[in-house]
């Protein structure tokens, strides 16, 4: 059993931490633990907020079971976001297949250790979601009382098996398809988008339904059906037999799939690791480009060759543009809602439209995580750029520029879409576009600088860089600070005049100044940080 526990420890650490050897890489390990702690903290915060909000809405109607239904569903769906990539990058990873297959440990144990490491990560997320749920339930005097808190804690051990199972199967299917097709990355991106589309649709369905909990009629319309109702019964009423049956229902399918995967570990990994080398290339005419264009093409190839990065960034773009398109098609309904609000005596709506459009665009654009991981993603190939006879400023220009290329046009497109949807004046639309484009330029440069400050050059996979880098979280927070600064500017300008155009002018000047400062920082400290890598 010792080898199994050793493998489990290594695999779990590789999922969560930056460095296995805490002694030598305390700073790196601390940043990895820090990143994980922030994520766990965020999850607890979100779970608590949702739980108490839903409990407050449903408790007066005696329907705390609705709160439990939503939170239990979220506890099963949310971890899928993590298991999906963790299954590909850890469980079915072929990077260390030579080393692993040569170890004097059965393939069965190796695979089980990987699967259990994945389960442990899911368990942490599930418990972070369920514990606040149980507490909210008890606080609002649910029938199960304090028992429900402990029941959910224990049930979490079994419920976590479900997203682990789904993540395993989907991760394997995608790894299998990707290994067998020529356009691996494109297939990975398309399948990933489909998978996340389903999760997003489910989540938005839950959020939308949760918004309709205002009246007795709306509450009564919601029926909690099986199998969630079974879980709620087990969580709220002490019944050992039901508990055992539910535990068995979660555990048996998981054990079956895990056993099947583990039994065929060697064959699976060998099949996934096999690549076909084509030997029919004939040298033909070669095209030349300039240095900047070559660097840009390389950056684009890296971007599209990193499916998880494409996914992370495209989700923001798709959501934002999608929201704009939906708003345009529902323009008549939106205008109707504003008219109703006007008749109810709510004034000043027109003045809020441009700022709200800007805030929405700014939020989504600030979470496009490309430049904030672009240096880390160079990893062991950084020597190529450092050895190349190109000024460091060119490298920075391309890395920040690529992020801006994704974010800038998105700002323009969404500014126009929201302008049409909310009937914002052309001048104000121009203001929204200019401010959001400047903000995206600043975010691109800030992200790069922050990545230079907090690089992660030794990650085992690109997924670890994109999902667990300190630079991603700090970059996001930095962008929110800038957004907060602009909000402060807006409030100050509004004291004098409600003119959005004046705010847009002042904000543009502020952002231009910050961009100049970011340029200076990159050319001085940024250059030194890059050379020291």
């Amino acid at each position, binding site marked *: 059993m010792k080898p199994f526990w050793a493998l489990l420890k290594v695999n779990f650490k590789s999922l969560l931490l930056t460095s296995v050897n805490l002694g030598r890489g305390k700073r790196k390990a601390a940043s990895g633990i820090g990143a994980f702690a922030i994520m766990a903290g965020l999850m607890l915060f979100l779970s608590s907020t949702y739980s108490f909000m839903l409990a407050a809405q449903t408790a007066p109607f005696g329907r705390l079971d609705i709160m439990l239904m939503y939170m239990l569903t979220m506890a099963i769906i949310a971890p899928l976001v993590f298991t999906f990539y963790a299954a590909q990058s850890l469980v079915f990873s072929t990077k260390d297949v030579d080393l692993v297959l040569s170890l004097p440990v059965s393939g069965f144990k190796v695979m089980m250790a990987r699967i259990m490491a994945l389960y442990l990560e899911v368990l942490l997320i599930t418990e972070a979601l369920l514990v606040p749920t149980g507490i909210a339930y008890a606080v609002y005097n649910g029938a199960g009382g304090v028992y429900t808190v402990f029941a959910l804690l224990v049930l979490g051990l079994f419920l976590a098996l479900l997203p682990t199972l789904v993540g395993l199967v989907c991760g394997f299917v995608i790894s299998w398809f990707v290994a067998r097709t020529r356009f691996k*990355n494109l297939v990975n991106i398309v399948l990933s988008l489909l998978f996340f589309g389903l999760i997003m649709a489910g989540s938005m369905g839950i959020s939308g339904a949760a918004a309709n909990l205002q009246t007795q009629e709306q509450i009564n319309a919601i029926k909690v059906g099986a199998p969630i109702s079974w879980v709620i019964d087990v969580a709220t009423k002490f019944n050992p037999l039901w508990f055992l049956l539910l535990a068995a229902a979660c555990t048996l399918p998981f054990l079956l799939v895990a056993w099947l995967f583990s039994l065929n570990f060697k064959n699976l990994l060998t099949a996934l690791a096999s*690549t*076909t*080398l*084509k*030997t*029919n*290339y*004939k*040298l033909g*005419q*070669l*095209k*030349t*480009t*300039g*240095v900047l*264009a*070559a*660097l840009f*093409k*390389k950056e684009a*190839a*890296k971007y*599209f*060759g*990193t499916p998880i990065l494409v996914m992370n960034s495209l989700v923001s773009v798709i959501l934002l543009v999608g929201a704009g398109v939906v708003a345009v098609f529902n323009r008549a309904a939106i205008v109707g809602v504003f008219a109703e609000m006007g008749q109810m005596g709510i004034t000043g709506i027109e003045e809020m439209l441009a700022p709200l459009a800007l805030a929405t665009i700014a939020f989504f654009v600030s979470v496009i995580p490309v430049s904030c991981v672009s240096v880390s993603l160079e*990893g*062991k*190939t950084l*020597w*190529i750029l*450092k*050895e*190349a*006879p*190109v*000024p460091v400023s060119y490298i920075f220009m391309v890395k920040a520029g690529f992020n801006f290329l994704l974010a800038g046009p998105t700002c323009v497109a969404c500014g126009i879409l929201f302008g049409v949807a909310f009937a914002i004046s052309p001048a104000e639309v121009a203001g929204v576009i200019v401010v959001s484009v400047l903000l995206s330029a600043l975010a691109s440069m800030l992200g790069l600088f922050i990545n230079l400050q907090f690089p992660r050059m030794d990650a085992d996979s690109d997924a670890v860089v994109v999902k667990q880098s300190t630079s991603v979280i700090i970059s996001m927070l930095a962008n929110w600070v800038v957004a907060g600064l602009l909000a402060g500017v807006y409030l100050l300008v509004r004291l004098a005049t409600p003119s959005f155009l004046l705010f847009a002018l002042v904000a543009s000047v502020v952002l231009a100044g910050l961009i100049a400062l970011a340029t200076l920082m990159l050319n001085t400290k940024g250059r030194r940080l890059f*050379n*020291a890598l």
Partner: protein
Amino acid sequence: MLKIEHLTKTYAGGKKAVDDVTLEVKAGELYGFIGHNGAGKTTTLRAVSGILSFDSGSITVNGYNVVQQPVAAKKAMAFLPDNPDLYEFLSGIKYLNFIADIYGIEAQKRQTLIAKYADAFELTSALGSPISSYSHGMKQKLALISAFIREPRLLILDEPFVGLDPKAAFSMKNFLRELCESGGAVFFSTHVLEVAEKLCDKIAIIKDGKLIEAGDTAEIVGNSSLENVFLELEAEPAAGLYVQEGEQK
């Protein structure tokens, strides 16, 4: 071609990887750099190629200081690490084209050079495949091709013979000689002492960050073998050596 003067590099934790190293590689020279594991060879080579910053000293390549004129210095040289991690998301030919674009090699010339070196290393037919599908030896060959097509004045290689099949190693030796005969220079580290003894015009031996021997291969080896000389020097405590052309040791 290459002048290293009083190069010193200390890593975090106080480990002095390179301690006051001075040596010169002239045009036309094939210069071998030998030392035990952790002696400071890779640190020296990476400092020369501009990849690694250093604490003190100066390095000039083809008359350009690598710190003050990095772009000009790097244009004159090509570096090959011991374990070349390349862009796995590119195909072999796309990687070579990328390098050629960075170094501004015009179209016809790059085609000729790629054809020459890819044929010599028997890699042409695989250039269309992604680098991720290459074996270690193939990646090594691709990295070598990418170095040679730049026609560098100074070629810096870190353990270049590792992973190469005998035919490829033979081709590489010929190309190294060709580069030196055309006025360039080669500065490379190796653990294969027989190759260094046969191939190199000059040799430097580094131990615990200090240069303990440097000069003509024939003079250093004498009537013995490089292996014996190396082992004898390794057994002595490292006292450091500063050698300039024409000076007495």
